[in-house]
Each structure stands twice: as C-alpha cells, then as structure tokens.
C-alpha cells in the first residue's frame, strides 16, 4: 500500500524547500528527520511541554501538533536560524547564556522560539508577563528563575539594539 503523498513547498529559516510528504507525518518529525533540523526537540507529542515550538509565519506553534502538509506555502523558523549567519547569537540566546538559563538544554530551543516572538511584540514586559509568556514551555531543570532573568535582560538588549 502506498501511503498518500503530497507535494509541499515552504521555507525554513529563509531556505526554500519542495518535498513529497506523507499526509500523516508530523511537522516536528519532518523537520527533524527529513530536513535534518534536529534542533527542534520533541518532549511530549501532545502539545503541553512546548519543546517543539517553532515559528510559523512569525507566530509560535507546536510543531508536534501540526502535520507537515499544513506547512505548505508557509514560512517556518527554527532554532537553527536564530543566530546570525556569522554566528553571532541572538540577544535572547546571549541572555540565556549570561544568566544560566539552561541546564540540560533540551527545552531550550522551544523556549527560545516562544520568547523571541514574544519579546519582538512586547519590548518592555514585566516579570509577571514574562512568566505568563513562558508558562507554556516546561523546563524540568532550572526552576525558571534564571530564564525569567534572562528574558528581562534579553528585552533590554533588544530594546537597546532597536533603532
């Protein structure tokens, strides 16, 4: 039996792809195992932990709750595209390093994607707002405190960098 295949076209981190994909293939599996973009992690496959968060047309989504076919015609962004081409870390990545906002680092890509999108829209959040924005991403190592500090710092770094 040949499972139904669909041709899809989309971009990830600005790179254009055209691929045949099985209709039931999860977007998270597709990114990781078909495109080799393994920086997007899978934690629960039921949309709770947030580790697989990517940006779809600039908005955070859980790639484990989407099928790859649903990415057709869309622009995706993953953790691999956060640092600049020359390797300079994004302010959110820099702040996470500076504040020890990661331990095992498994949930980190999802947190980076959620929070870069959030801080782009909310340049001056309060700590409570940062916690609210973070609350859809589970971290089992850090107790969140250093991540919250990192995000407050990242917001300041981004405000400074903004024109």
């Amino acid at each position: 039996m040949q499972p139904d295949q669909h041709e899809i076209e989309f971009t990830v981190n600005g790179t254009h792809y055209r691929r045949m994909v099985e209709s039931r293939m999860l977007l998270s599996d597709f990114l990781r195992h078909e495109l080799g973009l393994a920086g997007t992690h899978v934690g629960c496959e039921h949309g709770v932990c947030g580790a697989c968060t990517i940006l779809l047309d600039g908005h955070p989504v859980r790639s484990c709750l989407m099928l790859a076919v649903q990415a057709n015609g869309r622009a995706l962004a993953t953790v691999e595209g956060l640092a600049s081409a020359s390797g300079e870390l994004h302010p959110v990545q820099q702040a996470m390093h500076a504040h020890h906002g990661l331990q095992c680092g498994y949930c980190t890509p999802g947190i980076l994607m959620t929070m870069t999108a959030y801080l782009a829209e909310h340049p001056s959040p309060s700590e409570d707002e940062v916690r609210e924005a973070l609350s859809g991403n589970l971290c089992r190592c850090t107790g969140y405190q250093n991540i919250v500090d990192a995000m407050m710092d990242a917001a300041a770094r981004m405000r400074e960098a903004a024109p």
Partner: protein
Amino acid sequence: MSTRFFGAPVKRNEDRKLLTGQALFIDDVELPGMLHVAFLRSQVAHARLKHIDVSRARKRAGIVAVYVAEDYGDYWQPGPLLVQPPPIPGSTFNPRTQVPLARDKVRYVGEPLAVVVAESRYLAEDALDDIDVELEQLSAVVDIEQALTSSSAWVHDDLGSNVAAHVHQVKGDYRKAAANAHIILKRRFRYEHGISSPIETRGVVAQWNARGQQMTIWDTTQAPVFIRNGLAAMLGLGERQVRVIAPFVGGGFGPKIMMFYPEEVALPWISMRLNRPVKWIEDRLEHFVATTHERGQIHDAEIAVAADGRILGVKDVFLHDTGAYNPYGLTVPINSQCTLLGPYVIPAYDSTFTAVFTNLPIVTPYRGAGRQHGVFVIERLLDLAARELNIDRAEIRRRNLIPPDAFPYNNEIIFQDFAPLSYDSGNYEPVLAKALDAIGYQYFLKEEQPRLREEGRCVGIGIACYVEGTGIGPYEGAKVQVQTNGKVNVATGIGTQGQGHFTSFAQIVADQLGVDPADVDIVTGDTDQFYWGAGTFASRGAVVAGNAVSAASSVVRQKALKLAADAFECAEEDLVLADGKVSIAGIPGKFIRLGELAQRANPMRGAVKPGTEPGLESTQYFGPPSGATANGVHAAIVEIDPLTFELKVLKYVVVHDCGTVINPMILEGQIHGGVAQGIGNAFFEKLAFDDQGQLLNASLADYLLPTALDVPRMELDHTVTPSPLNPLGIKGAGEAGAIPVGAVFAQAIEDALQLTSRKLELLEIPLSPSRLFELTRQEAP
C-alpha cells in the same frame, strides 16, 4: 596555583551548542539504513500470558521483524541486581528483577510484551495493532497495605508473599527513651513522590558493525560504563567490542540510571540479528509507565521528647512500594530510613521497613531518592512536638541540632553506601539562623501575619531542616591530556544530564594548568574515551569525578613543569604556569607553550630517561571512604485562597552548605531546579492509579509539572563547611533543592489555614488544591 576559576561563576562551555540546536541528543542520531522499533506493552497490570500471535504484524508492509520473549532464546534473562542490599544483620531481601519481555506473566501496565522492527516508527506503531494477545487477568496488587494481607494476590508467585524486603535498624534504646519521655506523639504519614519526567524521554540506538565486530550503543543513560559491561556480557562480546555513548541527555534525575531497561536489552540484540542500526525513542505515554517511578511510603512514626523539646528517640515502622520488581535493591527505603535522622541529635532510633511488591511500575531513585519521605516524617513530628510543648517551631529545631564540635557524627545505622551513617562535617546552627533571618521569621510571626490575618488573608510560614548524604563511592576517574594544539582534553566515565560538568570540571583543570576554562574540552559518557567509572547519581559527580579531575590535572601540571625545567635547564620552582604556557619567573619573554610541551612529551627520536611516561597526560582515580553530608534549611511564606486552595508562594528561602563550591552559578541553578521539582512533588504531581493498576493521568496535560507561574523566585544563601573526605572539600548539591519542600509546605499551609485550631493536621504529600479541599472538610478526629 591560582584559584582564578575555581569558585567563580564561570559561564558554561556547553551552552553554545545547546542554544543553537547543535548538541547531539539521542533522537538526533541518524544512521544509514536505520530501522525503528516500537514496543507492545501490557494494557493490564497483572495477568497470565496465554498466547501472543504476531503473525499478522509480521506480514504488514514495512515490518522487518517482530519478536516475543521466546525469540530471545537464551538471551532472555532477568536483569541483574543493580544494587546489592547493604549488609544489615537480620534483614530479608527477596530480589526479583525485571525481564526483557514478559513471558509467562505480566506484572505492570506498560511491561513490554513484543517488539516490532520496521522501516519507520510510524509503521512499527501501526503493526502493534496487529498483534493478538491472550491474557488471563489476575487481580492487581496496588495498595501496599492490602498487599500484605492473606487475601492479596502475589506479584511473584514463587515468593509466597509480596514482601520484597524487611529491614530493622536500631540506634540506642528506644524503649528506654520512651519511658523517660515527657510526651510521645504518634502519627501516620503518607508521602508520595512522583516521576522525574525529564523533558527528553529515554532512547536507545544500537549499531552492530559485522565487519568490524563492533557494537556502538547510544543511550540516554546516567551510567554508560555499566551499560557497556553488562551488555557486552549478555551479547557474548568483549567489553572492548562495545562502545556506549551517552550523548547530551535531556535531564535524568535518577531514573535514567536504572538498568537494564528492556529496551536497552532489546536494541543491541536486534541490531546484531538484523545487522542494521536500530532506534527506539520513548514517547511520553510510554515514559509514564516504562520509565521507573518513585512513589509512596506509609510511616507509622512516633517521637519521644523531653519537656524542653529535646528529642529522646524516634520509632518508625514504614511500608515502601517497590513496584513489580526491585533491581535497585534497598536504596530508596534505606535513604528514607537514614535521612529521617536529619541534622538532629536523636539518641535512640528504632526503624523498621517492609518493601512491598505491587503491580505497578518499578521504583528506583528519583532526585532525593527516598530522602523526602524521611525528612517529611521527622519535620512534621517536630512540628507536632513544638505545638504540644508550646515551643516555637524554629526553636525546637535549633535545640536539637547536632553541635559543631560533635563531628564526625556517627548515627550508627548503615547507609546506602554500606558504611555506617556518619556525618563528615557540619555547622548547622548558622544555616538555620541565616534562613530565619532571610525569611524574616520573627517579623512575619509577630507583625506581618497578624496584620494580614486581620485583613482576612490566609498566610503561613514553614521551615524545615535536612541533611543529604552525597558524594558516595565507590570511585570515579579522569584522564587529563594536554593536546599539541595547547587545548586540554578531559575524559571521565560519568554521564552528564545538564549539571554543567563541561564547565565545572574545566574550572578545576584551568587553575591547575593555567589555561582558560574555554580551552578545556570535557568528554563524559563515552566508554571509548574513558574506560572505568560508576555514573552520575546520588549527588556525586562533582565530588567524586571532580576530585579525580583535580588529581589528574595536578600530575599533568607536575609533568609540564618538569619538562619545561629540563628544556630551560632551570629549577621547577623558577617556573610559572599561566596563560597556556610555562615561563621563567621574571622573564616573561622566555616561555614554552603547553602544546609544545605536549609535543616534547612524545619525542620521535632520541632516548628518554627510565620511567618516563609519554604524553602530557595523566589518569587518576578518586574514591571517598564514605559519603559527604550536606545540609540546609528551606523556609517559605505562603498565601492560600481559602475557597479555591490556590497557593501563592510569597517568599522562598534556601540556605545550604555543600562544602567548597566550584561554580556558584551552576550550584544555584541546581538548587532552583530542585526546589521546582519539590514544589511539583508537594502540590501537583500525584501518580493516580485505579485499583486495577491503571495510571489515570499518564499525560502532561493530566500529570502537571510546575510552570513558570508555579515556581516562585527563590532567595539563596550558603555557608561553607568543607568535607574532610576529599581534597577539594566538596559535598554534593544535586538533590538538596528537592528534599524538604513537602515538609515546608505542609507546615506553611497548616499555619496559613490555621488548621491546628480545628485539630486538623496535614500528614501527607502531595497536597493538591483538591486534596486540601477534601482534608479540610473532614471532621477532626
């Protein structure tokens, strides 16, 4: 030797890879021709297995193989007993270890029955539906008290009961203590711990290379060396033929050290049989039942106290749920038994436990590893005694602390490391004082709480002390090697799951060898890089491997100085080792780089002096005589909504002492994370089983882990009482954050809701809002 880096909050070397998505985790291992594995797991907790028919599954397109227990032949063996029971006279221990695939009987929901190997995971899971299983269901053993009654079914028929172990340990004479007591208070306590639930589940990849007769196994294990040795033996291979790599591991917290999981046994065997690489990644539902738990104990405990609040003795009889098998021996209940004694002088202790087999997943250590249970019991007993004697809660603790001149303090009973429970060093009162000060204890009780209560708010305070036996043996080793490019490579046998070893070990090396920590590459968890070791558990990585790294660096330092002294024809004392080079003191232009010395240490021509070892490298081992005992105090002010029982933590303070600190930033991170898991344990995380042994909340939507909204900001402080048991003076810190949280919250909530005035006591954990609702609606006894 300078100490520029040791003790400094050096930023982590491993971060960049993790932040850019470049770190290799288990599911990132992709190999050509790789097959994918799914396990058929039992849907019932207890049944006789009559028949499994896999013929339909084998015929499905894309399925390469399907195996059941019979297919394993002689390879089918119960797992080894991972931890022998400590030699405690008069104890009973009935080892029954897990099997690679259920054969005659299934003993818990989730126990694997069959393995499907397919071209993709999707196809493998499809085929699970094609397998027909015929079972004769038996009544499930779920409740640990009922398990010991004559009407209970038996988890292991040959045993004739559900007793996994029975241990009695005694210090002093409790009967005499009780006879002299002003009061004796006795209660029943229930403490349930949950699952570690790292965000990365488990996984195994195995690749057999038939041409080279080599097996490579990637495994999310905390103990790669033991996995290699065990699997080599099972597979009939030499240890040199097996390489185990624990790559970046996305959190462990204990259960990733259990061995051998059925999946770890299956994958290498399949890879050899099919001569193809195979991968299995646990999904979250599987994780809830296939990865080990830590669960409940029921304690019937009593405390005998003098009129001034001094503890005269404690008696405790408890039941421990060990699950369907007990490969981890007695570690968890022994930890409960020992840690109950806490930082207090308890002259008489009489403690008995019975470990009970149930038709539930296996119990092995999860961060804290039974210590929580013991701490909860003693801390709650002290609260009861304080109230009864009208002594302040903090004061009764202070009066009972072991005084600083009493160390080493021998508690006489046997600990999990087989040695008598002896505390190496400590100075407990300043830790308590600092915590009381930081939480504003007196101010809160005298001013803030009365004022807020006037306003109708339910606020309360909790304070709890604990000790943590850390840094146990047997040993770890490290190989430190200066490479010709001037960078230093360090290999150890432990695995790493986010503890920052890539940085803290680099700091130890950097000071010894005069290099930047960023120029030190650490390799952990690759058995081809370092051959020996035990693993990362029991808050021991920094203590045991850290001291081995230090010892090896010290030898390399001596070698470098000697080589340079020979080259310069000067005395070693005239040399300075800094900035990656050896220079002559006072003549900064006269130097040799470490990389060049490494080259000279491996000469291509000429003669070397007798006894010369090549290479600017050294391998050293360290094994402490016994564990180092850390201690601490947690305190919290909480507010609770009396209608919804929603809890808000207004302030949380941790003061701890884990000896000398390598990296305070990493240490604080460990404490933060531990407290967060403690909060999960205290409030949310209950494994809800029905009476048939079905886990009712096996998803992260139902089994709630704390989020950024649930974990408060924590204030940390510490004191430093170095351990005399290792040259660096380190004590472990990995579990300290998690241990006393339940005790703190039960006390604080009781205080906030003024439950004692209604004669209600909180003697159990977890205390979810719904459980608090139930408890506070009960009539007082």
